[in-house]
């Protein structure tokens, strides 16, 4: 692990460029164009959005390369794509397809329940989900250039993303006031490298951009996670499972950029039609939760 590596910094650099923006899940070139015209700073190319993956069940895998190619041709903004946790062959395919960012995602069915991908050997940056600081630091130690909350994807319920953001924030805050001995103990508790624990204690934040994902369905949801310290927002099913995707996409971009300006968020929240119906994350049995992957 070398966070000062020049190539790694180029990967983190792209994550920096996405800050303050919205990354939208899309399944075809038409949706990608709607996302770009609404002001998305990147799109995530998928075969099915998380709400459909959840509803249909079965094994969820990397998207067909032709879908990714079609989306790449349709827009000028960065294109991301998901691979299964631990599936480094899928990641190599995505790198060969020249996607701009790879999401090693719990939304897809894991390929390896023990190990995540060694992300240091890729030129393409990776984003990984996490629920707490330990997970975040382990993913960074594996080479992730961006961290996002897991939330509970495909629900339209923001409560899990909120929980994960608060969890990470409060754990980081505690580190900043700890002694060297306590930090050693925390490294053990978090199962994370001591160098990273010390770095977070010094910075008071993660050494890579920290975005929110999982359950964002309204402009107010986007404003909430930004106020809780997220540096950008991923929206999965929330846009294209709503009744007016164009308008909602635009409103979520506006709310993310102006999260500290409630008048603007109020204005863009008007008359958006129905949000995705969603399901309460608390009503999902443990074995069906995506975040535990």
């Amino acid at each position, binding site marked *: 692990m070398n966070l000062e590596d*020049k*190539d790694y*910094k*180029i*990967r*983190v*650099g*792209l994550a*920096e*460029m*996405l*800050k*303050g*923006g919205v990354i939208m899940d899309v399944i075809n070139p038409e949706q990608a164009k709607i996302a*770009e*015209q*609404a*002001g*998305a*700073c*990147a799109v995530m190319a998928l075969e099915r959005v998380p709400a459909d993956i959840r509803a249909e069940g079965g094994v969820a895998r990397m998207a067909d390369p032709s879908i990714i190619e079609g989306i790449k041709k349709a827009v*000028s*903004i*960065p294109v991301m794509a998901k691979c299964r946790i631990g599936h480094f062959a899928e990641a190599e395919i995505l*790198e060969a397809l*020249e*996607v*701009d*960012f790879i999401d090693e995602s719990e939304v897809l069915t894991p390929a390896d329940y023990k190990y995540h991908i060694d992300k240091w050997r890729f*030129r*393409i*940056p990776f984003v990984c989900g996490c629920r707490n600081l330990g997970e975040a630091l382990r993913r960074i130690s594996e080479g992730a250039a961006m961290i996002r909350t897991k939330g509970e994807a495909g629900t339209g319920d923001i409560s899990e993303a909120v929980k994960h953001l608060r969890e990470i924030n409060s754990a980081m805050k505690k580190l900043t006031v700890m002694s060297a001995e306590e930090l050693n103990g925390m490294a053990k508790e978090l199962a994370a490298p001591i160098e990273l624990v010390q770095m977070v204690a010094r910075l008071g934040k993660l050494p890579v951009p920290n975005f929110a994902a999982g359950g964002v369905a309204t402009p107010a949801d986007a404003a909430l996670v930004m106020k809780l310290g997220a*540096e950008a927002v991923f929206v999965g099913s929330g846009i294209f499972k709503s009744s007016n995707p164009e308008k909602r996409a635009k409103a979520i*971009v*506006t709310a993310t*950029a*102006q999260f*500290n*300006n409630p008048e*603007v968020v109020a204005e863009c929240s008007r008359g958006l039609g129905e949000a995705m119906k969603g399901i309460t994350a608390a009503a999902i049995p443990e074995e069906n939760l995506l975040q535990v992957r």
Partner: protein
Amino acid sequence: MLTGLNVGVLALQGDFERHLYRLHALGLKGREVRRREDLAGLDGLIIPGGESTTMNLLIDRFEMREPLTDLCRTKGVWGTCAGMIMLARAVDDARIKPLGIIDISVQRNAYGRQVHSFHTSISVNWNGRPRNLSASFIRAPQVAAYGPEVKVLAEYEKNPVLLSQRNCLVSSFHTELNDDLTLTKYYLESFVSVFK
């Protein structure tokens, strides 16, 4: 004194935070510019990297184009990457309406996708003092043509990558990602201070 300068960073989307860090490191307060009102009283403005399509849309959505253009015509401005695209006279992409501050035409993502992003060292020679800048090219644009008023301050593989015209500085690369204060300092001394 540089520290008294009131410099804003356009914070609609992109790596505005890194530019603010560099301003802080040089003792400036720096201001996030998210709305029209934030433009008032600035001595200079940095337009950061990010997605130019997003910035372009949000500049209009938040009714900032006119005051932003006025500021960029008179005060010291610096555009990095997407910021360079926004300050250009022309862009090879109908999705973007640039502000037309510097007489260059720009090709977006000219080096290719992220897999072709790279880090290098750029040599500059200011007043006979050669220096190297730690430069990151991230999905970077290229200058396809420039007018007679434009000065080329640095090249990379025969392409102009650092240019200026009167009060406006543009770079197709990032130094703010690399703890390199050289270019930020040069911008403050030779643009913001001069056009204050």
